[in-house]
């Protein structure tokens, strides 16, 4: 029988409609301006803090919509962005130092919907406001540093072994060492090759001089570059986290670039400064025990030769003033497992100077605890004139007992695997491994973002209404069916964007608007075919059937080619171009479903299995 859909096809349409509606739903709930309060060093958020904040906000006469309290976060929801901004000042004044707060937009989605994975669309920075920065990592400098470090190590090593060299110079991806005679060189090469196994040694004779060249292998060079980039990313991530931005994005792009996207940040100058800040690590011996540290904290004075530090959990600890080594002397760090016990470990490599100090110190202090201190220059606030106050922030990130003397390469055990990994990342990310430069910045102020949303929404709506009006006028009942498909199509696009959590940008909205215009094309093709069939005298039922059948291959060809264009755009284009390509591609796919299968289902219900004399088309 013509124009009857099998039950499964009708069910499919209903199912897609249902799912589309369900996952588009979270977008209707709107976003509340919120202030997120979170503990910085494992500090938990108790009832007291919440009560204090509530009290302070009430005193300031600010209306709070709701307090959402989860394990590690307190979300204070506001009804108006102005309230959020005023509340920021209030909170900044009373919030204890070990808590951070961040301004954000948070959807107010009911729990049952969140459980099903319903989330609103991820808005791009051009819609919500924020800063996008593209950072270039100076790989040549990273390479140079690594080679210089290696040259220094060789120099010290030869000096220690009392082998007289003429010069030790970095040259390309290796180090050239010059000697007076061949015998000296050969001896040096023999013992150096023993110690520096990762280098490839080759002899050179030139102008009566005797050289050997110690080259870094191609693999190691790649590793140096890879590490420089990943360490910089980790460092940047830590820094961004310290800014208290919700939902930051820090991603590698290509071989030497890093993208940092911070939604809602309003002070690009501060962000840029923090991103390129410097930090370092220090190793110190622990003095005394916890009781002494608490006592020192109480009286506010540390014993001679020591200083009071704090661990991340706020525990006071006394450390020697004398430094063992700093992060500058660290050549690499990684996480792994202790070969004997199999427990997780952090492995650190020091240069030869650091290694010597470390060996001497640990030989004398077996069985005593040693601490790792993270030291960073951070902006801690502003003074009365609005000038930034900068301070070195120091915190003890690890304390471990020295079990045996160690030097160049050592490991710290007694940590959980995740912690060991974290610590190695922290060790590595103490400072930027290679110099960075900001090569692209796109900042969108919050009001412009809102303007973009409003204008985007207005143009989608206006375009939709115009097209729908025209379609209804031109194709009557069939036009109304096409309109139904058009609206469904929009809902599906929104649902898919929400599900994929693809980022919706202003060009993305433009893509949706364009899709609205082009989505009706499939229906126009079908309806024109049906009209043609009617004209040549086919029955209404046969016309519908033939119209859909004949238009199908045309629609496919037309859409596949447009899809090709969208895919090319997505894979080659960047930023705004990509946002456009994503919605265009999704729109093409969903519009094929709604315009062909969707409208057919409705047309079948309207006209199928009936005696129809005329079609309202």
């Amino acid at each position, binding site marked *: 029988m013509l124009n009857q859909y099998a039950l499964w096809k009708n069910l499919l349409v209903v199912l897609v409609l249902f799912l589309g509606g369900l996952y588009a739903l979270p977008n209707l709930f709107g976003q509340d301006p919120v202030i997120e309060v979170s503990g910085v060093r494992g500090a938990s958020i108790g009832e007291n803090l919440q009560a204090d904040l509530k009290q302070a906000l009430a005193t300031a006469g600010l209306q709070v919509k709701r307090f959402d309290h989860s394990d590690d976060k307190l979300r204070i929801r506001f009804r108006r962005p102005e309230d959020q901004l005023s509340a920021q000042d209030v909170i900044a004044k009373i919030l204890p130092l070990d808590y951070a707060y961040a301004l954000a937009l948070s959807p107010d989605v009911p729990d049952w919907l969140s459980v099903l994975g319903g989330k609103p669309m991820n808005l791009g920075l051009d819609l919500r406001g924020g800063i996008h920065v593209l950072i*270039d990592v100076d790989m040549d400098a990273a390479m140079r540093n690594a080679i210089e470090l290696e040259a220094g190590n060789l120099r010290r090593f030869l000096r220690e072994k009392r082998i007289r060299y003429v010069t030790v110079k970095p040259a390309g991806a290796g180090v050239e060492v010059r000697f007076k005679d061949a015998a000296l060189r050969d001896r040096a090469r023999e013992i150096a090759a023993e110690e520096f196994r990762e280098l490839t040694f080759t002899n050179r004779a030139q102008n009566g001089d005797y050289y050997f060249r110690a080259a870094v292998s191609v693999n190691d060079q790649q590793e140096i570059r890879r590490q420089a980039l990943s360490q910089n990313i980790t460092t940047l991530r830590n820094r961004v986290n310290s800014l208290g931005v919700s939902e930051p994005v820090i991603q590698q792009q290509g071989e030497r670039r890093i993208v940092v996207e911070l939604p809602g940040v309003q002070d690009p100058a501060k962000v840029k400064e923090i991103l390129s800040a410097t930090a370092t690590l220090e190793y110190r011996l622990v003095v005394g025990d916890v009781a002494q540290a608490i006592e020192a904290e109480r009286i506010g004075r540390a014993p001679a030769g020591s200083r009071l530090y704090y661990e991340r959990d706020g525990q006071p600890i006394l450390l020697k003033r004398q430094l063992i080594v700093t992060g500058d002397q660290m050549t690499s760090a990684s996480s792994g497992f202790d070969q004997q016990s199999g427990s997780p470990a952090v492995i650190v490599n020091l240069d030869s100077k650091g290694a010597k100090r470390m060996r001497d110190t640990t030989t004398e202090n077996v069985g005593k605890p040693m601490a790792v201190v993270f030291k960073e220059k951070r902006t801690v606030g502003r003074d009365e004139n609005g000038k930034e106050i900068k301070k070195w922030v120091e915190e003890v990130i690890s304390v471990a007992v020295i079990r045996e003397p160690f030097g160049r390469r050592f490991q710290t055990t007694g940590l959980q695997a995740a912690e060991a990994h974290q610590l190695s990342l922290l060790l590595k990310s103490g400072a930027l491994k290679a110099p960075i430069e900001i*090569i692209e910045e796109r900042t969108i102020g919050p009001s412009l973002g809102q303007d973009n949303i409003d204008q985007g929404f207005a143009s989608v709506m206006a375009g939709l209404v115009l097209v729908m009006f025209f379609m209804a006028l031109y194709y009557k009942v069939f036009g109304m069916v096409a309109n139904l498909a058009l609206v469904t199509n929009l809902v599906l696009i929104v649902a898919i964007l929400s599900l994929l959590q693809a980022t919706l940008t202003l060009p993305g909205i433009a893509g949706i608007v364009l899709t609205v215009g082009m989505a009706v094309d499939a229906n126009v093709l079908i309806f024109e075919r049906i009209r043609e069939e009617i004209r040549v005298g086919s029955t209404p039922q046969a016309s519908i059937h033939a119209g859909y059948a004949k238009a199908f291959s045309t629609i496919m060809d037309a859409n596949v080619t447009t899809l090709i264009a969208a895919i090319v755009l997505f894979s080659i284009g960047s930023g705004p171009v990509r946002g456009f390509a994503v919605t265009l591609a999704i729109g093409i796919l969903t519009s094929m479903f709604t315009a062909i299968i969707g409208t057919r289902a409705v047309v079948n219900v309207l006209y199928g299995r009936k005696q129809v004399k005329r079609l309202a088309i």
Partner: protein
Amino acid sequence: MQLINSKTTFNFMDKRYVAMVLSGILLLTAIGALVFRGLNLGVDFTGGTLIELGYEQPADLVAIRTTLREIGYADASVQQFGTSRDVLVRMAQLSGEGNQSELSNQVFRVLSAAVDGAVELRRVEFVGPQVGEELSEDGALAVLVALIAILSYVAVRFEWRFAVGSVVALVHDVLLTVGLFALLQIEFDLPVLAAVLAVIGYSLNDTIVVYDRVRENFRKIRKGTPEQIINTSLNHTLGRTLMTSLTTLLVLLALFFLGGEIIHGFALALLVGVLIGTYSSIYVASTSVLVLGVSKADLMPPQKADVVDDRP
């Protein structure tokens, strides 16, 4: 309701020489504009800094220019953006070393200090020279790859004459659209590039629909010259071509008038592109196929052709 009489028999192909001359003149103008005036490339491609500021009062552009000149940026371009309170400052790449990304901080600080009341930093776009170069290269590459991919698809699905015809139409559309931007010196930035690529998609869509009908009619209609068959096909698809262009133009007009300043160039490129694309699917694409000498035998399904060939 119908846009056009259902039984139109316009003789499109009869006027193809007029169209060829028209296209020729337009193309020459576009290429001339591109060569002699060049594109007014945005910061995305040239590198540099763009700062959009929101003032509380209508902004005094002259004062802003003076302030900028005082701190050594005499060549900064200052103009209104949308409303009289919004100002767009464009600055070229700084010569020499130094932290280029700091420029926007400095300009914003100085300009906010220069007026009473708050100045809002609405937008900053800083693009370093190497990034600008890459974006240009990637953009050109995207257009090229899209054209080649489409050429291959059409060649497989139809026939090489159609592939060539569709690409000729696409190049025609892209050149005219980009040429208009060069002629009027409208800023050409990344969103406009995206629009140009969308024009490729749209124009192709249009062309394929026409080709599809041409292929169908070549197979179905026994009598008639290629010219007549193409004419019939164009008439068959005319209603759809106009209707789809109309709906697309409607939404683009909405985007152009309501979408805001940032999307203006984008919407304009698409508006122009859709108009040209509609014209080119009728005249450029179809004429090309005709000029390349398409015939009935070329479009018969391969199996049937085999049967015919086997007989002596």
